[in-house]
């Protein structure tokens, strides 16, 4: 069974905006997502018969979320170390 990750980009009122790992954005009703979903959550979702995401199968994958945040933080920390600091004149 095909599965894929979708990260929750943002929650706007009753709408959740998700981003697939290919960078596509999808809007779905917030109520269709698992309880506890918040911005930044990573969802593992099965694909249904028509090769579409079956949102009822979505589960929050906290390990994948932590892995992504750790990787992003490492990259950010490396870049922050190069910041010359103070005011800048362009």
């Amino acid at each position, binding site marked *: 069974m095909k599965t894929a990750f979708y*990260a*929750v*980009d*943002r929650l*706007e*009122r009753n*709408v959740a*905006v998700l*981003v*697939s*790992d*290919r*960078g596509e*954005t999808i*809007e779905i009703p917030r109520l269709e997502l698992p309880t506890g979903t918040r*911005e*930044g*959550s*990573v969802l593992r979702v099965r694909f249904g018969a028509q090769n579409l995401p079956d949102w009822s199968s979505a589960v929050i994958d906290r390990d994948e*979320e932590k892995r*992504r*945040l750790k990787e*992003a*933080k490492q*990259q*950010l920390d490396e*870049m*922050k170390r*190069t*910041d*010359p*600091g*103070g*005011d*800048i*004149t*362009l």
Partner: protein
Amino acid sequence: MKYSLAVMALLFATTLPAQQLEIHFLNVGQGDAAIIQEGRRTAVVDAGTTTGVGAFLQSFGIDTVDLLIASHPHADHIGGMPEVLQTHVVRFYLDNGVPYTTAIYRQTMTAIRASGAQYLTATNRTITLGAAQLHIVAPPPNTTINNASVGILLEYGQFRALFTGDSEQEELRYWLASGAIPRVNVLKVAHHGSANGTSAGWIAATKPQAAVISVGAGNSYGHPSAPVIAEWENAGARVYRTDRDGTVFVVANEDGSFVITTDRADPNGVVQFRPFTQDSVEPAIAPVEATSPACCRVCSTGKACGNTCISRDRQCHQPAGCACNAKP
């Protein structure tokens, strides 16, 4: 008599030196993107949801972005970052330093590293862009993504504009308490005009003459909020919306005066704003409507192209706008 004075004032404005500050609030659908130009220097604040900002930059003849700022890592603000980073020389990149989990964020990080842009953190610092200063207003620590938006107070002589990403009440309160927020001439309304991006205290502190809402038509989120628009208008601000007005184009002078025109305005639709006195407690001065064709930008060294000036050796791909060539 009043008509004559208004026309004289406009004529006077059109003879001002060509050195002016330009801000383009781009119509990028549901998202934020703005281009700031002072002389030959360019800053870009946010890049919309998808590609498109790169094409705007190319149409303005800009191949180098001196400073690229991501207010926060939501896709409707950084979606177009990879394209800008891959198609333009980007000298400096600044964001709020908050890691995120989406593929769009990861693609942006990869593009930053590949571009060689110098990374800057969003501390309270001043970045000088020609004769303009961008004062970075740091977000509060340990908060939600929207409330971690980078604030940018743009100053050009007496003219001020404020960019606040998708700030919500918590961040607006934090900034108000910091005392870092003065009255401004132009404000980008936070969070696409959402009800959680405006407060009475915020309106009283910023009291802009023009409030710009960057928003997409028919969005699913109810942006912008009708009561929010009414609140800004009741405070004396002229409200512009990119979904209805298209790209909103501001040309500012160092004395604090500025003009605004939009993609969808008729050729006479240039609105001129007078400077406000910094310490005045008077209400915002009502804008003077242009009653005859006026130039928002006089091109002396370059040539007119749409609403801006470009180098004489470049080909213009813009439709007729409000920029004029200087008289020989």
